[in-house]
């Protein structure tokens, strides 16, 4: 968050009246509930200087426990609650001596996500001098309510459900949920049901998509009333190099502290380099540097090449260190491609891509006296291309309903610097005795709070906007080109990414503040969507706690939900080659606005929008259109494109996926 506000365009015009964080829209009345591992209240990111009193409507509480007293809440942290009854029932009593049975975050994850949502500006933030700058949340004026649902042994559904239930009762406007489980049917997924209840009460729910990428169909949290957030890179990197004994230089990344750099690019500091694998196509335990697999006699005094996979990246570094290794080269495999994720290892370490990894392993296997040195080059900005969809970011299509395109969008989630717990070192390893105020992490857990924070910003500017309106604004203004003006790329393949990877695209907060048109969806519309999902009356009842909610069968198909993305699915045994979907847009821009439709060409179908123009005469006016897909030639794989409504100022874009 020393870079993401700038990368998202939030800091442009910072000193002008147009500043998105200007006084009138500080967002002090917007409260974001963060379901996570708690919060480290002493972090400067939670300083409440200059904040107005907490809104009187707020019913949240600062629950006290070991290490967390009422004084730890302030005008920034307005609530702190704990939920562990389900956890204790499943795993046994929490040991209050070794674990804070309070909202105090001893893991760091919750502190990081909360600060990303709404952390106050902190100058001079950095991790061992990397990523230096002013750290701030995406909505620095918003307030945070921490709901601790995750403990050392995991997070349990009954606790999460209780936290959502309580947060809605407390009065949060936005829920940021950077966790997930497996995918189950809508009516079997308690988080989905609770999120439905939250949405009904006007709460915007943002969830991480998961880190199951680049495998397809790896998404979690796919309900249409949830905003599902994938992860992408920013234009910031932490370059490091591996110089081989043969003079060849390989580029990688590292967060190793420069001042303590042990290995320099000089001849006398070259170290022997060793790879414990056999260069077979599948990694072996010793090549993965799993615990207990490295022979000290072989490894001591050497730089060890470790393949990614199975164990946490930082743990591999610890294994190498404990075996006497002086450094580590962490090599990607086919699963990660060329995407480089920086970690704060316990020893000098450089992460490299799959191609470079293969080259180094080849060098080691063919040179009896292979040597290398490592050098760390600090922080580099302006990286091109960026953003790039993270290899780990979970991918579509949506397993439950093909007609609902997921993920919804992507946001920064790679190498994000934000506040950290005072309880653990930056590697999270118990043996790491370093203490830092900020840490750099990667995951869809990091991208989700970026969106939650921007949603809070939108809510502050437009208090009357529904959760679906906020989501629509975020999606229809998202961009699908990187900073080289080429299509967004997928880090796992280096090829253009598709809407199954990036959804509607990368968030563009400034444009989202003024989207022109929005696709609004009311709770009953979502219920009508469920009515298309072949659920029994009893299964539907899970979502109809208001007894008056029943199926009106207003949607001909799930694809007719007024979703900001369009997914046309031709039935497998289609008797017709024509499919029509319906949408209604609401004018939230100037009262008199004329929009024209533009559709990208498709190989397998002709696409016709009717009417071609939408002429609005007043604000909040709703106009409908239909989009008809006629098969020209059935394609074996889905085709991707987009529909854009333009009025000369606004570009209201919906991604289109056609599946046969």
């Amino acid at each position, binding site marked *: 968050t020393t870079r993401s506000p700038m990368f998202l365009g939030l800091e442009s015009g910072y000193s002008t009246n147009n500043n998105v964080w200007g006084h009138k829209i500080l967002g002090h009345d917007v409260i974001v509930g963060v379901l*996570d591992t708690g919060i480290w209240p002493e972090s400067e990111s939670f300083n409440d200087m200059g904040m107005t009193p907490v809104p009187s409507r707020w019913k949240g509480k600062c629950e006290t426990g070991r290490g967390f007293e009422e004084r730890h809440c302030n005008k920034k942290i307005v609530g702190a609650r704990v939920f562990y009854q389900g956890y204790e*029932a499943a795993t046994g009593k929490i040991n209050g001596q070794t674990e804070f049975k309070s909202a105090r975050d001893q893991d760091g994850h919750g502190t990081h996500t909360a600060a990303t949502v709404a952390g106050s500006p902190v100058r001079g933030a950095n991790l061992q001098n990397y990523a230096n700058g002013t750290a701030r949340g995406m909505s620095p004026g918003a307030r945070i309510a921490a709901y601790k649902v995750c403990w050392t042994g995991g*997070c349990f*559904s009954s606790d999460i*459900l*209780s936290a959502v239930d309580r947060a809605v009762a407390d009065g949060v406007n936005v829920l940021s949920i*950077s966790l997930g489980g*497996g995918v189950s049917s809508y009516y079997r997924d308690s988080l989905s049901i609770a999120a439905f209840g939250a949405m009904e*009460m006007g709460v915007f729910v943002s969830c991480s998509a998961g880190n199951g990428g680049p495998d397809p169909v790896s998404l979690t949290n796919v309900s249409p009333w949830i905003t599902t957030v994938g992860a992408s890179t920013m234009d910031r990197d932490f370059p490091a190099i591996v110089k081989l004994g043969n003079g060849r230089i390989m580029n990688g990344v590292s967060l190793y502290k420069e001042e303590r750099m042990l290995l320099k690019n000089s001849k006398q500091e070259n170290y022997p380099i060793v790879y414990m694998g056999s260069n077979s196509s599948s990694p072996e335990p010793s090549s993965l540097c799993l615990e207990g697999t490295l022979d000290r006699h072989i490894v001591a005094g050497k730089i060890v090449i470790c393949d990614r996979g199975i164990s946490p990246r930082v743990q591999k570094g610890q294994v190498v260190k404990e075996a006497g290794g002086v450094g580590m080269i962490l090599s990607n495999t086919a699963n990660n491609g060329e995407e480089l994720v920086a970690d704060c290892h316990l020893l000098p370490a450089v992460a490299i891509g799959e191609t470079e990894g293969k080259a180094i392993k080849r060098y080691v296997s063919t040179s009896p006296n292979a040597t290398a040195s490592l050098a760390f080059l600090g922080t580099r900005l302006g990286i091109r291309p960026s953003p790039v969809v993270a290899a780990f970011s979970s991918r579509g299509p949506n397993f439950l309903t093909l007609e609902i395109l997921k993920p919804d969008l992507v946001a920064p989630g790679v190498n994000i610097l934000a506040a950290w717990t005072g309880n653990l070192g930056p590697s999270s390893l118990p043996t790491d005795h370093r203490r830092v105020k900020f840490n750099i992490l990667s*995951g869809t857990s990091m991208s989700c709070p970026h969106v939650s924070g921007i949603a809070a910003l939108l809510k502050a500017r437009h208090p009357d906007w529904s959760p679906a309106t906020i989501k629509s604004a975020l999606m229809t203004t998202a961009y699908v080109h990187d900073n080289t003006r080429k299509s967004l790329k997928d880090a796992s393949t280096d090829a253009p990414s598709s809407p199954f990877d990036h959804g509607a695209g990368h968030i563009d907060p400034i444009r989202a503040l003024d989207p022109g048109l929005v696709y609004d969806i009311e709770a009953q519309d979502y219920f009508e969507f469920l009515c298309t999902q072949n659920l029994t009356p009893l299964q539907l009842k899970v979502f109809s706690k208001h007894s008056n909610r029943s199926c009106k069968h207003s949607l001909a198909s799930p694809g007719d939900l007024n979703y900001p993305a369009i997914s046309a699915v031709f039935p497998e045994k289609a008797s017709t080659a024509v499919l029509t979907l319906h949408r209604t847009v609401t004018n939230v821009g100037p009262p008199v606005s004329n929009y024209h439709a533009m559709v990208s060409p498709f190989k397998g179908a002709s696409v016709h929008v009717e009417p071609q123009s939408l002429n609005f005469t007043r604000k909040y006016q709703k106009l409908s259109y239909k989009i008809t897909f006629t098969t020209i030639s059935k394609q074996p794989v889905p085709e991707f494109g987009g529909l854009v409504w333009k009025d000369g100022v606004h570009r209201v874009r919906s991604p289109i996926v056609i599946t046969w």
Partner: protein
Amino acid sequence: ADTQIAKKTYIVQMDKSAMPNSFTNHLDWYSSKVKSVLLEPENEGDEDRIIYNYQTAFHGVAVQLSQEEAERLEEEDGVVAIFPETKYQLH
């Protein structure tokens, strides 16, 4: 201890609108529903089987039940759905 039936947490969703008039609050009703399916009588000092009650975004309780008790509860009027406890991970 050997004779104790293994209990797990179940999230029980209730149809709030189905509460009989004889009850004045929902928690009492939920509680009576749970008690009606218990295979072991509750003794004084036993921990409450209900560990949460949900009232806003969701209606119902989280309760410790044996599998048989959960199956019995699922058949009760007013019970919409029963979800076994599941584990989530940070992303």
